[in-house]
């Protein structure tokens, strides 16, 4: 047994223990904290699996946005804890346990019987990489081979945002989302929120920028930037714009619209929607990514912020 395998086994046991505890613990708040740690462990697993693009996404999403979202929700809900303490009966629990065990057993069987050598599209992706102009094959998949999925993903995020906003009270429609803040402009948090974001923005843009050729890209960069924005707002140094704000709406739709415009231009220039003319693939991919950045930053941060909760000061 090598050291690497020992580390992997330890990591797997740890992540299983964390997941089991997160499921089993009585207190919801504790469960959420467990889930945040679980996200960190998952990042380590992605690194162990040599999938750095995914590890970056998980580090930014799991550690940053999802954690903040769930912790915020758990904090607001904690006073209701007592009302939902009752657990389902033994019968339901047994049934659930049997069902879960069956699924796990079936999946384990499938995992052990995956074909060897494994089928892979890596050679195909590598062969065509040259015509996309980018060096990171994951970016090539996201923005060339399967760009439709990426466009739709941006639209998914927007539709989820519409859904979140639709949960506003009518009297707050057109108003601003709000975070619970420490409105103390002198406090440590405000200090932190002044120092970190400038550097964070550089890091976010850097992660975005290297994405064309190295692990990284717009989703990871956008998540970091969104986290920085949320930090500034959470420290009370800024406010969310009202959801009726014109510039906000234009930036939110600009990414997908530019993406589609470049996609449709491909009919004329390269003979198919989402095709890139020879030699122009990389600049066009960059243009799409740059247009998607503000959309993603705003949408991801606003998803954490939730529905509009107050009217803007007149």
């Amino acid at each position, binding site marked *: 047994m090598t050291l690497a395998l020992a580390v992997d086994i330890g990591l797997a046991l740890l992540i299983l223990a964390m997941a089991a505890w997160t499921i089993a613990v009585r207190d919801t708040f504790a469960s959420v904290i467990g889930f945040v740690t679980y996200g960190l462990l998952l990042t380590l697993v992605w690194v162990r699996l040599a999938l750095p693009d995914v590890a970056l996404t998980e580090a930014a999403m799991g550690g940053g946005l999802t954690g903040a979202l769930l912790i915020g929700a758990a904090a607001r809900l904690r006073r209701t804890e007592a009302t939902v303490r009752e657990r*389902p009966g033994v019968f339901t629990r047994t049934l659930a346990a049997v069902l879960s065990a069956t699924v796990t057993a079936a999946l384990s069987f499938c995992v052990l019987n995956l074909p060897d050598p494994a089928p892979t599209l890596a050679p195909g992706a590598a062969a065509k990489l040259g015509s996309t102009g980018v060096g990171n094959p994951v970016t090539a998949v996201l923005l060339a081979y*399967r760009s439709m999925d990426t466009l739709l993903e941006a639209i998914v995020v927007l539709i989820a945002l519409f859904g979140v906003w639709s949960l506003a009270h009518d009297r707050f429609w057109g108003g601003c989302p709000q975070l619970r803040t420490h409105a103390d402009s002198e406090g440590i948090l405000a200090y932190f929120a002044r120092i970190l974001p400038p550097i964070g923005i550089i890091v976010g843009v850097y992660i975005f920028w290297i994405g064309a050729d190295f692990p990284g890209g717009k989703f990871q960069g956008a998540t970091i930037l969104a986290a920085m924005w949320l930090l500034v707002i959470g420290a009370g140094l800024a406010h969310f714009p009202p959801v009726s704000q014109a510039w906000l709406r234009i930036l939110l739709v600009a990414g997908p619209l530019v993406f589609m415009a470049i996609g449709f231009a491909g009919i004329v220039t390269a003979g198919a929607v989402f095709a890139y003319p020879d030699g122009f693939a990389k600049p066009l991919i960059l243009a799409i990514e740059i247009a998607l950045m503000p959309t993603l930053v705003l949408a991801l941060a606003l*998803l954490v912020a939730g529905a509009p909760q107050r009217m803007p000061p007149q």
Partner: protein
Amino acid sequence: MNGPTLFGLCAAALIGFGLYGLIVNPQPLRKIIGFNIIGSGVFLLFGTIARRGAAAGMGGDPVPQALLITGIVVAFSATALAVALLLRLFDEGGVVTLVSEASPTEAKADPPDA
């Protein structure tokens, strides 16, 4: 036994845990966490498949990696929507449970007044 297979089995177990949590926990936020654990298990399984597909000088099959990134972002959006619904429910009544006060057959069916 190697790394990818190990994490594949780990993924299978995570999906089972998450499923159990989703079914058994009455508190909706816990159900959302359960869903996220199932989701991460599925992603992890996909990750092991990506890792197994290492070829052509790449550490892993790039197609599953790209799809994983998409999947993670979609799962985050789903969580945000679910949390928003949950918080709205909390604002309305302060009681957060999926069990209606009335039984489903007698639940109110009034459309909103136009």
